């Protein structure tokens, strides 16, 4: 029963996407237009499905709003998740138009599977900060402060991008840091700080900024040696390639890059 329902849902998605593509062409051939640079003009319509890394949640929600305001006939759906999981969904044939990953390695998996249309482009970078309880009661200033014996520290597991970045930074600092837990993603590490179960965690600056009501973010110099690139690409099997290309161009346009830098990303 469940399988049948899923099947039906997929058929529905494909059908609407196909219709969207059709009306999109006709609208584009109309003489009207003159949309802002990077937008598909008022013609972009139908459905657009974007798969994006979880750390992009806050900024892509805002970008989606802006994009939809320019393209009122377009229905944009963004699905957030761990980059590796999203990459697996794409290679397993999930219908999507755009993929924005939190690491070049996961993007490479999609490229290797032949699912990318064209070359992925790095559009922002993210770096680590030390997340501490609000007001930084332990007075943490550097990575070396995290090695104090009674301090509990959470890192991301090395299998996920924030974990491999943390490892690079720790090696660069030459400190012997013993974490109490290796969390499955950056949001999980952050929530351990919010709950007060650990005294500090290494998280992305963007996550720390989004949670600034509950935690403090402490910058540290070694994070410069462990910067994460975020690539974006349109997908080969995109049901709505015109809108996909327009969205990627839109993300990389001036005003939207401002949204990303406001969230703590670097260009």
């Amino acid at each position, binding site marked *: 029963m469940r399988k049948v329902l899923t099947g039906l849902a997929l058929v529905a998605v494909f059908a609407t996407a196909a219709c969207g593509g059709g009306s999109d062409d006709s609208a584009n051939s109309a003489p009207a237009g003159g949309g802002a640079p990077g937008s598909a003009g008022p013609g972009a319509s139908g459905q657009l499905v974007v798969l994006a890394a979880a750390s992009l949640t806050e900024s892509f929600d805002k970008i989606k709003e802006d994009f939809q305001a320019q393209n009122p006939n377009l229905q944009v759906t963004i699905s957030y998740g761990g980059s590796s999981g999203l990459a697996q969904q794409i290679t397993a044939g999930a219908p999507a138009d755009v993929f924005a990953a939190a690491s070049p390695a996961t993007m490479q998996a999609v490229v290797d599977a032949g699912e990318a249309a064209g070359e992925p482009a790095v559009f922002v970078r993210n770096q680590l900060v030390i997340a501490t309880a609000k007001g930084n009661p332990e007075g943490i200033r550097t990575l070396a402060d995290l090695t104090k014996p009674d301090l509990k520290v959470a890192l991301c*597991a090395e*299998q*996920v991008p924030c974990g491999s970045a943390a490892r690079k930074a720790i090696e660069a600092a030459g400190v012997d840091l013993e974490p*109490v*837990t*290796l969390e*499955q993603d950056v949001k999980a590490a952050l929530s351990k700080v919010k*709950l007060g*179960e650990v005294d500090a965690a290494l998280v992305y600056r963007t996550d720390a900024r989004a949670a600034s009501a509950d935690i403090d973010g402490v910058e540290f110099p070694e994070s410069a040696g462990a910067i994460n690139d975020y690539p974006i690409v349109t997908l080969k099997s995109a049901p709505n390639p015109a809108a996909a290309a327009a969205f990627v161009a839109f993300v990389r346009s001036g005003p939207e890059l401002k949204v990303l830098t406001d969230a703590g990303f670097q260009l």
Partner: protein
Amino acid sequence: MFLTLPLAGLLIRAPWSTLPERLTEPGILAALRLSLLTASLATVVCLILGVPLAWVLARLHFPGRRLVRALVTVPLVLPPVVGGVALLLVFGRRGLIGGWLDQTFGVSLPFTTAGVVVAEAFVAMPFLVIAVEGALRGSDARYEEAAATLGASRWTAFRRVTLPLIAPGVAAGAVLCWARALGEFGATITFAGNFPGRTQTMPLAVYLALEQDLDAAIVLSLVLLAVSVGILAALRDKWVAA
């Protein structure tokens, strides 16, 4: 068909050619040992706490019994991750009981192997309680009454009469409980975190392997499956048929 097809999928996709060298990777053994240890300890905890609870629910009549019975099933309904957060709010360093434990005894459950046992017992307990309660309700209370008229204390009657009667139910409940504890993921990773050798059980290792290497994840899953099916098959013949 529906139950076994995903298993067949795992077997078909398994990297058989590189299996021997993958199986000898050091992390696997540590995670497997931790899984078996914590699931067994969690089952013991569930037996100690769950059997008396089931007896109370089946034999005593008290106001609010229906409510208590409904509360027992809460861990079944609750998404395990939510269960993990709830455990943190109670047993965590800033939790209701955890704060006191930390202050008074310097004991802290999160990020320890004991924390894994707590998380697994929390999620697996309903399976045992429901199975044992069902067995108790199915068994005739008059045997206990007869024992009481012959001078047996309540405890003696329970130990010598009731327990042997419901032994198959207890065994079935314990097996369910153990199996659920062995596969536990959400509450464990949320409450006890993930650290190799200390709190990283097989399901956690599988999840993280999946982030990078599908083949490694499949190998880990197969190991867990093979070991658990083997143990369950052996125990089933021994206990449940008895």
